[in-house]
């Protein structure tokens, strides 16, 4: 009984939004479509890819994408078709361009800036904690104390 249950549990895969009737017969094309749709944003839900989304528009876009691929579009052409309509926003991975440099490298710039500020601050603190050299009088007193003469 337990074994049967365990086997049944193994059968329970994650739920996919892609319906069987959407799939292409050609496994190569279907694979390309799946890979592409994971990179495309569902504009209705906005934080899911069209591969994961159950929104009807996501389904329409999955079907459209498969239609373009089946019609002979390259991956880039199929994606460009959607970008022309929905803008760069449909790309879950924003393109690297002059106007997106800040987006891509901003976090690293902040990290470097933070590290620089930290290094400078730590150096200053280290410099500040070195005590000033003893005066001649203090040195003489210290020497006496160390020799055990008493103050």
């Amino acid at each position, binding site marked *: 009984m337990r074994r049967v249950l365990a086997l049944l549990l193994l059968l329970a895969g994650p739920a996919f939004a892609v319906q069987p009737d959407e799939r292409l017969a050609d496994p190569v094309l279907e694979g390309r479509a799946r890979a592409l749709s994971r990179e495309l944003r569902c504009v209705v839900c906005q934080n899911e890819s069209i591969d994961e989304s159950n929104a009807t528009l996501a389904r329409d876009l999955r079907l459209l994408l498969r239609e373009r691929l089946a019609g002979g579009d390259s991956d880039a052409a199929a994606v460009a078709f959607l970008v022309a*309509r929905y*803008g760069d926003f449909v790309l879950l991975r924003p393109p690297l361009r002059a106007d997106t440099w800040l987006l891509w490298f901003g976090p690293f710039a902040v990290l470097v800036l933070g590290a620089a500020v930290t290094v400078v601050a730590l150096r200053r603190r280290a410099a500040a904690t070195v005590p000033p050299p003893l005066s001649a009088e203090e040195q003489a007193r210290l020497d006496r104390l160390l020799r055990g003469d008493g103050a």
Partner: protein
Amino acid sequence: MRRLVYLLPLLLFAALAGYFAFALISGRDPRELPSALLDKPAPAFDLPGLGGERLSAATLRGEVFVLNFFASWCAPCRVEHPLLLRLARQEGVRLVGIAYKDRPEDSRRFLAELGDPYRAIGIDRDGRVAIDFGLYGVPETYVIDRQGHIRKRFVGPLSPGQVERELLPLLRGLARL
């Protein structure tokens, strides 16, 4: 001078707080997408018409018009409908409708019930024309100029404020051109 450095965090905080307050008060919805087709030619379409005659982009060319995607099953469309009626009947706006993923008999019943503000209506059963426009929900409203370029997109139901502040001034401006 060194004292001013200690004020820096406070200034940064004030700048951030000001920015957040502005974002809260301005009423801008960050989920609202700008149209990728702004100031570009509107997609060509040729749809069966609800009235019998086909609706195509070519026959609409040459005049400023407002294109409204609606559906009988869409609740916000009902909210916006009285405003569309007012635009068509009182302001004389040339309003063209596209029924998005709606059965023609349902669209007809919807318009019979609420009134028909449209000069012409196209039937987009599979929603492909809507995808060409980059639509991601109904209702959506587009302003298209004489050259057939998209000049503005409104996502969601139009509000009286949007109509007064944005739509009507834009249409007046385009009519004068």
